[in-house]
């Protein structure tokens, strides 16, 4: 009952499918020269394949490093899927990925135990790899110089206690700035995220009196507008006069949203520059046991050149018990990620590189994996 015309239609569809199958290639079609010739020296090749998933915050860094690595070592295969930190940890625990990216260290208790059980031979550990400063972006028409916002003012803004941009508390920190009598519209993440966790962690430490909601990956404070993803928050701030929100630095620079100098524990205002963020990270202490490099940020620091609002993405791996066919590639790839050459690529993408003291600890830990 299929008539000629139908046959033509079906045939052309199948034909189109075949053409599509024949012509494609599993590459990005980039100009083939290595983008980071200097980095190639730090790469040691091993064959095999790795799959990883988790944090979307570090996805771009991972993509870049995988690209570098595969350019040199065409025999191996590495895949990093996003999906979110929680997804990454779940899949790691279920044994479906070789390592996970997460914006928070494994939580003590059930989560750590589950991950340990997967590794069998040794505990699962957190290795910090990618740092990202969190910008507090705003949209206040008429204000051209960067605003100073103390932790306490930020807490009050994001809980709806300060509602106008010309509030006395803000004006006091910004002498000489003509603040408009505009309503403040605060934006936060509506999905769970490491960005929210680290921003609220900063408020919980440096604005203890005004922020009573603790550190949480889900926004728990009242008021404000939720938006999906950092992109959504940045878009909201950008399109709303009086808007304010927090997102990774790259979203601020890409969307050309001005961002504030935020107050530290002592009330001093710190500009967001890569150097200032690295400085803050260099004060962090490894708080984990054994080879675990879970970091404890020093929010109490009084150094006025340390930007206290940032996020670190950890790679969660098994310290021991990695399968023999994965281990060399795992060590070589993560070893490359912790190399100076790889870390130097980060600032161009809106991240910060690990400070040297920490980077060397990371390299050591990676080489000790078993």
């Amino acid at each position, binding site marked *: 009952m299929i008539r000629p015309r139908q046959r033509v239609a079906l045939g052309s569809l199948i034909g189109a499918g075949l053409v599509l199958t024949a012509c*494609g290639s*599993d*590459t990005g079609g*980039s100009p083939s020269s290595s983008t980071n010739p200097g980095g190639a020296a730090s790469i040691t090749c091993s064959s095999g394949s790795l799959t990883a998933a988790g944090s979307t915050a570090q996805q771009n860094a991972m993509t*870049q490093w995988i690209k570098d690595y595969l350019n040199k070592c065409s025999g191996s295969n590495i895949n990093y899927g996003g999906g979110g930190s929680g997804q990454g940890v779940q899949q790691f625990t279920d044994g479906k990925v070789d390592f996970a990216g997460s914006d928070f260290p494994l939580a003590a208790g059930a989560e750590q135990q589950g991950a340990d059980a997967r590794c069998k031979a040794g505990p699962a550990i957190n290795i910090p790899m990618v740092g990202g400063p969190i910008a507090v972006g705003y949209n206040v028409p008429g204000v051209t110089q960067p605003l100073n916002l103390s932790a306490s003012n930020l807490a009050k803004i994001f809980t709806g206690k300060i509602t106008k941009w010309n509030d006395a508390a803000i004006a006091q920190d910004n002498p000489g700035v003509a603040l408009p009598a505009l309503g403040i519209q605060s934006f936060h993440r509506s999905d769970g995220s490491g960005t929210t966790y680290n921003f609220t962690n900063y408020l919980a430490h440096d604005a203890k009196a005004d922020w009573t909601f603790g550190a949480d990956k889900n926004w728990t404070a009242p008021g404000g507008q939720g938006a999906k993803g950092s992109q959504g928050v940045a878009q909201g701030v950008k399109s709303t006069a009086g808007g304010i929100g927090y997102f990774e630095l790259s979203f601020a620079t890409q969307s050309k949203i001005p961002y504030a100098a935020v107050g530290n524990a002592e009330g001093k205002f710190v500009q967001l520059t890569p150097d200032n963020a690295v400085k803050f990270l260099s004060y962090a202490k490894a708080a984990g046991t054994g080879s675990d490099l879970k970091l404890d940020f020093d929010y109490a620091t009084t150094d006025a050149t340390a930007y206290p609002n940032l996020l670190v993405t950890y790679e969660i791996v098994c310290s021991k018990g990695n399968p023999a066919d994965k281990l060399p590639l795992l060590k070589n790839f993560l070893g490359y990620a912790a190399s100076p050459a790889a870390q130097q690529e980060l600032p161009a993408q809106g991240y910060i590189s690990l400070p040297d003291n920490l980077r060397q600890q990371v390299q050591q830990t990676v080489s000790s994996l078993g």
Partner: protein
Amino acid sequence: MAQSVHVTAGNSRLVRTQLSRRSLVAIAAAAIAATVVLFVATPLQGLVGFVLIAAVLYILAQTVISNHVEGRRAAINRLVTTLVVACACAAVLPLVAVLGFTIVKGLAVLNLSFLTHTMRGVAEQDPYGGIYHAIIGTLEQVGLATLMAVPFGLLVAIYLVEYSAGRLGRVVSFFVDVMTGLPSIVAGLFIFALWILALGQSFSGFAGSLALAILMLPTVVRSAEEMLKIVPDSLREGGYALGIPKWITILRIVLPTALAGIVTGVMLAIARVTGETAPLLLTVFGNPALNFNPFSGAQASLPLFVFGEAGLPNETAINRAWAAALVLIMIVLVFNIIARVIARFAGVRS
């Protein structure tokens, strides 16, 4: 309604006074002018508000004047006609806006290289990369879903039309309806709960196609059922009269007669699930690299790709999202056109 008997009398006017086109234009101009005044006098602003208020004013004025000049029945008739036109505009405009918006943004990026490369090793700011992997993923997932849903759906439809008479048939028919209203995210959650959590399987293209098959099933059943129903009984009776068993009659006479219509229904079901994002989010996971094997490992898909790229802070990534959305719409368009071509032959001759 019996007054029309009087029509013969010369004093009854057959044609009532009608509002001329010119007076309608005048009313429209007055409505717009009034709206401008309103916008100047009050803190109103925004194009949407302007159009809305002007339209409401026009409709009010036109109805009042028509009621005065043409009478109540004609006024109501005119009001409804205007409302119907307004509805068509109100519905089509945003829809065309969405479509135009995608086409303009998508065409800026779309080229052959975009169709034949993947995102393996492409960072968000890189101006290259493509959706080959996502196209393959979508075609495989939808293809597998079709392979599962169509035979299954056809058998259910045959059961409903040819065999069921009793209570079971009514129950099945009812649950087909319920399934039609099944939210796609629930289908995704079900496969997630069953396939990934309970059975411990990995995310894969196949898991996604299971969810899509559930969403396709009721559509296939309903369309096949409708087509089988309009196959004239005389064909069946002819078969029986020749001593052909019922199942052969169904497979060789009834089904082929309804085939073109069934294919159309299937094509439209395919078009419907191709754009589904939510169930895939929970089941196929997404993958920047090409994975031909839908049974093992995470796979990409076009809707997921659009969703992922649109959330990145980079203009090049967002442009990729639009181009992928455009490709997705074009794929659906192709399915639609095929369905329509086939539908031309859908007539079951009676």
